[in-house]
């Protein structure tokens, strides 16, 4: 690990009175128009409607739903709702990943050195796309859905305070 990161044991020792913890937002990545980042602040129905509109608009055959931390549940919920409403025409391809988040510890005293530490949080990326209905309940489509065009790991763009950072 980089020298900026400090091990967990060391963190425990850091006195809270001497440092202020500031959480940075996760990295922002370039976003396509069919990427939907789920958060806990926007109304659930609004987010669902947005996904529905994207799919029914005819512009896209697939959308990606991203959720981080606390929003994973909601992302899954939205994806399943979409599939339920889609009359069997939609298929899901979920992927999970880990997102590295950065916390800053700003010193309150002159002696303290500012420290940045990293911590990991889970994320989910669900691809919702049109495809032939699968018989029975057997998942695993014959060909895996194509991976996102960007080589970078997909990470959520925006997180509001509802997220468990």
């Amino acid at each position, binding site marked *: 690990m*980089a*020298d*900026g*990161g400090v091990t967990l044991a060391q963190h425990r020792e850091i006195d*809270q*009175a001497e440092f*202020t913890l*500031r*959480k*940075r*937002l996760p*990295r*922002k*990545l*370039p976003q396509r128009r069919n990427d939907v980042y789920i958060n806990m602040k926007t109304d659930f129905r609004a987010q669902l409607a947005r996904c529905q509109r994207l799919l029914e608009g005819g512009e896209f055959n697939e959308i990606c739903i991203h959720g981080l931390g606390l929003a994973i549940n909601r992302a899954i919920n939205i994806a399943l709702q979409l599939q339920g409403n889609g009359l069997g025409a939609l298929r899901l391809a979920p992927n999970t990943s880990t997102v*590295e988040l*950065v916390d*800053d510890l*700003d*010193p*309150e*005293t*002159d*002696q*303290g*050195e*500012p420290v*940045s530490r*990293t911590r990991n949080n889970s994320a989910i990326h669900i691809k919702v796309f049109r495809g032939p209905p699968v018989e029975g309940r057997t998942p695993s489509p014959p060909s895996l859905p194509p991976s996102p065009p*960007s*080589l*970078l790991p997909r990470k959520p763009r925006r997180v*509001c*305070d*509802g997220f*468990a950072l």
Partner: protein
Amino acid sequence: MTEKKKKKTKIWYPHTSENLFSMSGAKGKKYAKKMRNQPSSVTFPSTDFGQNSGGSSSQDRTQRGNGDPQYQWQGGVSGGFQQQRGHWSQPPGPSHQGQFRGGVRGQRGRGDWQGGQLGHRTHQGYQRHSQELPKFITASYFAQARAAEVNAMLKAVKNKNANSQVFQALPKHMRRRAMSHNIKRLPRRLQTIAKKEADKTSQQKKEVSKTKSRKARRRHGNLLLEFNRRQRKNLWLETHIWHAKRFHMVKKWGYCLGDKPTAKCYRACYRAMTKHCLLQDLSYQCCLELRGAEDDLLKALARVTSTDMGATFAAVACLSGKRQGSLVLYRADHYPQEPLGQVTFIWKPKKVPSEERQLWIWTHPTSKQDLLSELLSVCQCSEPIEPRAPIPGPATSSWKVEQKAEAELLGRKRKRNDKEGEEAVALKKIIGDGTRPPNQPVSWRSETTGIVISDLTMEILRYRLIGPLSHCVLADAFKPASDCKESDDVTEGPCPWWLKHCKDADNLSIHHRQKDTFQLLKGVGSPAEIPAGTVLGLTVDDPRLNLPNKRSQSMPDPSQLQDLQKIRQLTLSGVAAECAWSSIWDQAVRDNVTENKIPEKELNHMKSELLVPGSHLSLGPKDSRIPILLVQQPGKQTGEELSGWGSGWDVLVPKGWGMAFWIPFIYRGARAGGLQEGLKHSQNKGAAHFPHDFPDCPAGMRFAKEQENELADKFKRRPPAKRPNYIKHGSIAPFCCPWQQLAEEWEIIVKDSGEEQPAALKGRERPLSAVQGCEEDLLKSAESPSKLRLGLQLEGIEVDAGVSVTESKKACAEGIAGFRVLRSRNVLRQLSVWCRPTSGKGQRGQRLVPSFQQELTPESAVSISAANPISLVWARLTLLKKGSPALHAMISIPTAEDFEQLSKDPVYCGPQEPKHRDHFKHKIKQIKKSKKKKKSPAEETSEGSKTSSPDGGVCSDLTLGLWPEPLPSVTSHCSRVTIGFVTQGDFSLAVGCGEALGFVSLTGLLHVLSRQPADRRGLVLMRNAASLQYRFAKLRIEV
């Protein structure tokens, strides 16, 4: 000649008495001017009129009997006033009687009636005559009288008044288009007069218009002369001309600054801040340089700071030069009192361990003088260093030349002779501070410690880029300087410093590392991903060379993959300390770079000579290299949401290069903002803005005073019916915030309530009824000082209660606030935890109250407020529902019923303030009336006695709708108890609801918090000054 007829032919007859009476001052003046050339009285020489006209009527006899032999025609202005006053104060009845009992009245009348009123009588007499015709007329006298009138009329017609042209005297139907310049369109009889007039005016015009033609004025040399003259009083930034074409300019703090763009771009600027890049010229900020041994500097500076507020100048990260720090400085050893201003500072990184340290303190121009004098005294720098005499050429030399040229121009014609032309070539643009006299010292040395303080105002430019793509703009606009090869050494390039610099291998390696780091920035998503306040030094090529042909938005290019591991390292630990080093710290290099700038003209010339038009111009070794410094500005750091919003980069550039760096940014799609955008930025960021949010600093106090005057003037300019009556709205101080009074009143309230019922302060989980009861007590106790004060005011004594107010005013005049703003980090953190509700929806994470925090109990609250007497706390308020807070809105405490209503009714917005009564309206009316009456001399004496009555003093500066000084109790004036005021408020586009920043009284806040139920903690009411509607708001203290 009846009254009616007189009115009709107003042109040569004076106004009738009614008209005169109703004329306002300006109108009266105009009238007097018009009547200047008119005959004031129509007379005909007859001394024995009285005897001869004896038979005409009893009325006539009365007049003659008054002893004035002249038949006065009512005409003179002063006479007119005299007459009508006399007439109106006399009821009409007696005058009629007088007409009948002429003889008797005539005798009496001689004493108290002046001759002036005769005329009036006369036409009343005529009216009578018209009804009952006279039996006979003496023809000769009648004709004489008429002849005199006709003469007067003729005279009046001949002498038209001086201000108008001949054609203006023509009736409307005879006027023609373009009569003013084509004399032939006038009637022939007037043409000669008109010609005379035209000649006269054209002569006058010629005398006045010594100014040159526009073409001559716009010639380069003359334009520059004019510009230099205009920036002598208020400094111009280097981007001034650019801004002046696009911005509303204001003269502030000795500078001409762009306030806001003339285009409608409020939202566009906000979008630029959140999505792309907003550019701001902050070159008006002043830089103070401190040089000396590290220990000496730190020892001296420790006196003006306090560790209570967090890290100081000595913070490890800042001291190494890696980070920029931010602080509030205080007067030496005065810590909780007398702050001077907010500063940011950068230390120059060490190259050699035992090196003389260099520190730059950046401050706002309003607080510069205070800070400079304090720093001088702290560092004992008393010995001014003479500025190097003739070398710092451009500004001083241009100064002299300009003055000479101007002196010559005074009595000179447009055409220049050769000698003057030569001098005009020597004329130079003012770079740097043009208002400063050339021999004023700018640096001071201490004899004991050797510390040198210099004032680098306008020496270094500062541009701020705000927004997530600001480093995309930077990366596109800058090209790191190419190295100098040994072979280039022979040719003398325009930047000799770079040649010297590159000879050192260390310098070169640092430059390469800086270059690599800068390239890495392209891979970072937003400036918020880099540690706050990171400093990166850089040397770049002339940014004018790789200017794109068209303005376009620079966007990140995901196809260019960066080394992810390196980027991760950068985001985690920031830039290494060596990379923060830049040659911009070196005065010699800065001067060199400024002097050797290739002028725009030459560059364009070179570009035009390119073989392929529009291709890239490469100067090779001749290219200038400019040392710059990039400083990361952290975005929103406090609070839980939108963290990192509004982060960006500050670019520090040596002077003279302003436009050369500005235009490339603009061409990369950065949108320019002014002062207003800067204010909005800090408001959305939740950061205190200097000087708005520093009411305890001298600069902040001055600002508040200015703002108050400005707002009051604006208010008074509107007609009374079209402006809010603030008294009826219950807003005592709509234009300024009486902080001192607020803080003091809360001290009294809490003391009183504490003495009365100590048992009431039991604990936090108290039933609603108890809270309610407490609120009532609060109101009562809040009223008591107010009553005291009001009572005194009504009695007109203003002795004891006024003392504190007057004292505080005195202090304000000296620039010292009687109150404090709480800036102790520990206390603020404690308060911030207490302000949050302990339970409720969406309040995760509140359970984790850090171990070092105390529980909120009345005892702990009392101890905190006792430790910080008369203090204010800076707080951030978010409206729960509708509403947009405005400047100087009131923050008040909700009662228990309000909470009940809120929980019952989901759409309940808030309580209403009952309308107040305006007691002063009546008084103002009285004063107005008495002023009118004063005109009659008879009543003057009684008026005089009235104005000397006790309320006369208060009445002196009454304005309808504003509370006169002294103010009544601020806290208890309304139905809800006030704890604070808003200093900035608006609908926040970032959050999507109304947001405000303001101060509340610490004592008041603790009082509220300890009495509110746990799940409603931090909920307050807010009301705009011009509204009766209270709205619920969430109060947060963010650290």
